[in-house]
């Protein structure tokens, strides 16, 4: 171990799935694995991306599709990041304004896409403009899974709705003000809207692709080569934190940690809901709850589903070569081998995003 190891700066945004990073720091796991880490709370995915690209951060919580977009040169400067761990599976919710939910009629989550599409067609026939929906970033699982769900019922996400981007902490306010009629965001922001009485829970993104991969732990280009030992140590700490989060007895401590470091403005019950596999204010447990340990080992094949969806919606430059995805399960395996009890690797169900109807060129 170096006597005075250099600092790794790791960025995150206030979301429940930042928990493995927050817990690793709070529980002293980074220090125990012999790596100096400073977490940096950030306001935007674009800021995380730029700071990774220009050397202001060494690592970050990242959106899987954004890692691919960066490698393809479709978002900001072209950079090949390295993914050494997944941070979560599932964990996003689709929330509707009570007015829009009313137009659909009574439903029990998960809302069927066909019922949503029928309501939108009735609205269009009565001359109402398409509803505005917010996602958290163009290159996100939220945008891609919502689009898949809409398209599966015959809706065109670019015409039958207006999709915009709103930062997750602003979603509830935007919904209350009528600036948007629905959103798809990571928890606890859906629970927050429901708890505030301005949103109705419609479905979880896990209902669209069960156990889909969510955020990842990504490292700046080349860092896994130049500072491999530190990357392995930090990854081992994050794997251990994911195991700790999976133990039901630790959930209330985890909720308090998240409140302290990520969401000081939210009540504990709202933050605790996602950790307990629920949406605040809804009694029924989610079929596809937020998961940490099962997300930890990065699965390169799962990234192909994002790529397929990004091509479908033309989010990648035409003719762009396959971006060299840096999903490195080998780094994870080496980091996990340092733990006394490495978690069993998890998997998503086969992705519906890979079974996309081929579009004709005419």
């Amino acid at each position, binding site marked *: 171990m170096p006597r005075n190891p250099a600092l790794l700066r790791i960025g995150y945004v206030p979301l429940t799935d930042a928990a493995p990073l927050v817990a690793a720091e709070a529980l002293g796991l980074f220090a125990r694995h012999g790596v100096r880490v400073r977490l940096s709370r950030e306001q935007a995915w674009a800021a995380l991306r*730029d700071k990774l690209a*220009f*050397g*202001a951060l060494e690592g970050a919580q990242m959106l899987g599709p954004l890692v691919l977009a960066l490698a393809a040169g479709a*978002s900001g400067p*072209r950079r090949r990041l390295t993914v050494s761990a997944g941070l979560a599976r599932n964990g996003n919710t689709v929330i509707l304004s009570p007015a829009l939910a009313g137009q659909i009629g009574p439903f029990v989550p998960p809302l069927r896409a066909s019922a949503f599409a029928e309501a939108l067609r009735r609205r269009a026939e009565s001359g109402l403009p398409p509803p505005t929906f917010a996602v958290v970033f163009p290159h996100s699982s939220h945008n891609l899974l919502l689009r898949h769900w809409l398209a599966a019922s015959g809706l065109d996400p670019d015409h039958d709705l207006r999709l*915009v*981007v709103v930062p997750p902490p602003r979603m509830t306010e935007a919904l209350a003000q009528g600036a948007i009629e629905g959103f798809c965001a990571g928890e606890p922001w859906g629970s927050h809207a429901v708890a505030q009485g301005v949103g109705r829970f419609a479905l979880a993104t896990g209902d669209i692709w069960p156990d889909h991969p969510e955020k990842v732990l990504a490292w700046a280009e080349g860092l896994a080569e130049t500072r491999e030992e530190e990357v392995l140590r930090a990854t081992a700490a994050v794997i251990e934190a994911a195991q700790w989060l999976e133990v039901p007895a630790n959930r209330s401590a985890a909720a308090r940690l998240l409140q302290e470091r990520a969401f000081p403005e939210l009540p504990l019950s709202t933050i605790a809901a996602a950790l307990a596999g629920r949406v605040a204010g809804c009694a029924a447990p989610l079929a596809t709850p937020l998961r940490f340990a099962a997300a930890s080992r990065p699965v390169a094949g799962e990234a192909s589903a994002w790529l397929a969806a990004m091509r479908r919606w033309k989010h990648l430059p035409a003719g762009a070569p396959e971006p060299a995805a840096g999903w490195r399960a080998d780094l994870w395996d080496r980091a996990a081998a340092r733990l006394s009890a490495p978690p069993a690797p998890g998997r998503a169900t086969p992705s519906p995003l890979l079974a996309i109807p081929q579009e004709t060129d*005419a």
Partner: protein
Amino acid sequence: MLEEGTLRVLLVDHDEDRAAAVRSGLEAGGCAVVAVVPEARDLVALVRESAAEVIVCDLDDPSRDALESMRALYRDEPRPVVVFAARGEPGQIEAAIEAGVAAYVVEGLAPERVRPVLEVAIRRFRAHQALRAELDGMRATMAERSLIERAKGVLMQRRRMSEAEAHHWLRRRAMDRGQRMVQVARELLSNCKAE
């Protein structure tokens, strides 16, 4: 009154004090700040009304992601977004400018650096847009040509025309109806499918 050649800047900043400082930095650098807004809501309309040529935003502003989506989610009124970082690290400016497209990082807001950086950002953005439009155009032309070729193939096979005759047939029909050849070809092909 704006001076000839003044750059029209729209500033997005949720921090009022910082916005005031950035505004004076931009104005000292010879820019006209035509609007200052705390968030990116209704930005498309605002860009149109204010005739802003460039949007300036702090690297850490919460509106960054919404600004990104102006390009990726809907394509109306694209404008270059120039990003400033209060604390730049050595090498960042060069790396950022070299990377092109969207992000330009500048150490502080030294007035003599503001205008050149904005100008480079706008030039690069326009070059990128032009290249993209050209590529889109090329792709569209190729797709249209392939439709016309397929329609000609149908005419040659079903009506035993030569290639020149098929081409002539499509062109005459297009002229008669005041349509483009590709429209006639598309209609012909969809009729074939329906049969």
